[in-house]
């Protein structure tokens, strides 16, 4: 498979959008504008961007507590995301969800989830709907390396395999749960080998190589739809920031963090590749400026937008 130039630029643009979106959040947080905590995926943009851009709008994703990238990747409006984190009426969840729980049904995002592994069984159910409705779409389920050890993971993969459901399990292995190194938490050979044990074809990829992610998700999607079998991808990546805002990063070295930042950064690496392939600094600069502008205006608009009105929340609890 070869990735077109347009797609390449789009992949770059999306990674930049995610990075700048989260850097803007960080800055808003430090200015005391945000209530609650948040989980930044800075450093992991390639997985979200590559995976989501390989999908159709009608393909669904389920996301995690570290879900800003997934959400943007699937086409969400940064303005509505900022608005959500600021508790504004225009936010995706009208200020009820916040950072950890943004859903964007219009773009096929079934929602971020504050519960580790909470979306695995949900993705299986959504895939069952596709199967029953005979739709040619898949569900892509994002989860972290920490989620692999929850009972839900096991039950979800077993059922998806037994019932031949069109679901792509995508583990973002950023090598740590909150503080626990994945090798201390996952017994056995590897995370990908866990998929095998349910009879699900599983591969491990470089999650910081955005084209590799894009291509393997595209291929997996095709295979899922042609073989009627679920698939499993372990994408190896790394987060630069602490787990959440209260993290002192005691469980890893700054050498390790710097190694990933310096040597493996998905955006830097991809820029290098694109320049080699003849895309110009000017092309990229134009994209980056546009993204910066989007973020800047979105933040401003969100800050200027009205708070979510206080409605009857007991009534809002029921459909």
């Amino acid at each position, binding site marked *: 498979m070869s990735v077109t130039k347009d797609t390449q630029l789009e992949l770059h643009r999306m990674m930049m959008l995610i990075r700048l979106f989260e850097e803007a959040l960080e800055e808003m947080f430090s200015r005391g504008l945000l209530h609650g905590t948040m989980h930044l995926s800075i450093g992991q943009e390639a997985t979200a961007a590559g995976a989501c851009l390989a999908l159709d709008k009608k393909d*669904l994703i*389920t996301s995690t507590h570290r879900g800003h990238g997934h959400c943007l990747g699937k086409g969400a409006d940064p303005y509505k995301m900022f608005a959500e984190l600021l508790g504004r009426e225009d*936010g*995706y*969840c*009208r*200020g*009820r*969800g916040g950072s950890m*729980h*943004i*859903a964007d*049904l219009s773009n096929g995002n*079934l*929602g971020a*989830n*504050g*519960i580790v592994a*909470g979306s*695995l*069984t*949900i*993705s*299986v*159910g*959504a*895939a*069952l*709907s*596709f199967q*029953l*409705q005979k739709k040619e779409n898949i*569900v892509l389920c994002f989860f972290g390396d920490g989620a692999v050890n929850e*009972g*839900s993971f096991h*039950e*979800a993969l*077993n*059922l998806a395999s*037994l*019932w031949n459901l069109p679901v792509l399990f995508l583990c973002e292995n950023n090598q740590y749960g909150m503080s626990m190194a994945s090798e201390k938490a996952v017994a056995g050979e590897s995370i990908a080998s866990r998929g095998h044990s349910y009879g699900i074809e599983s591969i491990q990829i470089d999650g910081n190589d955005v084209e590799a992610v894009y291509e393997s998700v595209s291929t997996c999607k095709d295979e899922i739809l042609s073989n009627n079998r679920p698939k499993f991808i372990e994408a190896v990546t790394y987060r630069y920031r602490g787990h959440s805002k209260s993290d002192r990063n005691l469980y890893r070295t700054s050498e390790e963090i710097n190694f990933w930042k310096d040597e493996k950064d998905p955006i830097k690496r991809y820029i290098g590749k694109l320049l080699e392939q003849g895309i110009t600094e000017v092309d990229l600069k134009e994209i980056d400026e546009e993204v910066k502008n989007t973020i800047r205006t979105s933040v401003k608009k969100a800050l200027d937008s009205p708070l979510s009105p206080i409605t009857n*929340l*007991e009534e*809002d*609890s*029921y*459909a």
Partner: protein
Amino acid sequence: MPELSVGQAINNALSLILKEYPNAFIAGEDIGIYGGAFGVTDGLLETFGEERIKDTPIAEDVIAGLAVGAAMTDSKPIVEMQFSDFIVNAMDPIVNQAAKLHFMYGGAVNVPIVVRGASGAGTGAAAQHSQSLESWFCHVPGLKVVTPSNPQNAYDLLLHSFVDPNPVIFMEHKLIYKIKDDVVLNNIPSNSELLGQAKILSEGNDITIVSYSNMVNAVKGAISSDELSEISAELIDLQTLSPLDMQTIITSVSKTKKLLVCQEAPANSSVGSTVISNVVQSDAFSSLSIAPKLVSGLHSPMPSAKHLETTVIPQKEDIMQAIKDMV
């Protein structure tokens, strides 16, 4: 008007749903060829096939979780917890997902699922197969909780639960499955208006007795006993435990001035305590002529031996005694 057991009535309701809603399916353990541990899904596999009657592995978390995901994507799942005790393994999808997603996502999604389970004691199945856990779910905003007591309301309430746009926990007491009565096989309603409505089973002036699920039948036995024939009791079957129909209860208590609540579950943090607490916080407080009373199961796990089991579950005689003490 056929005479049906509760089990058959539910089976009929399920059949009708599957017939009329192509996007409805049922999932659960041993619901296919086995027909369910209590026979409720008997014959459905033959009629509707494996696509719609989905036998699952023993894995309650994914049973409930798949229902949530399916419901968010235009399917209408009904899932069976073989014994409602096993719902403990499905608390995340039910409590942290189904109950919250509509609100948490700002109203953008609905999660219309029905989780049916066989609840209650009386069969000697002991502590891990005899619980009445419905009170828990009443504590969880976003869930509705429904408990039938007889063939007709089992049939109707299941249809109404199905069309409700919210997740509904539907608890079927094991001992009611065999209860038989004539059942009007109503059509599927266009909305769930029956949910949230208590039913006055007998009108009376001396005392209001509030109950639900199989305990309603024990109360019926008590008030129709010769010994209590002089007493005019107003018996209210809650039917829906969340939301509670407090208006019907309060109106009744204001009339009778006495309130007795009977349930199988233990008292602490329960439906019965809530009913009493709500009544005394209402205007009916001042009309109460004596202290209200809750007859409930003991605060004990369920023992297996019959004579111990009946000690834990309120019996007709306990209810009669409570009525006599109050009237």
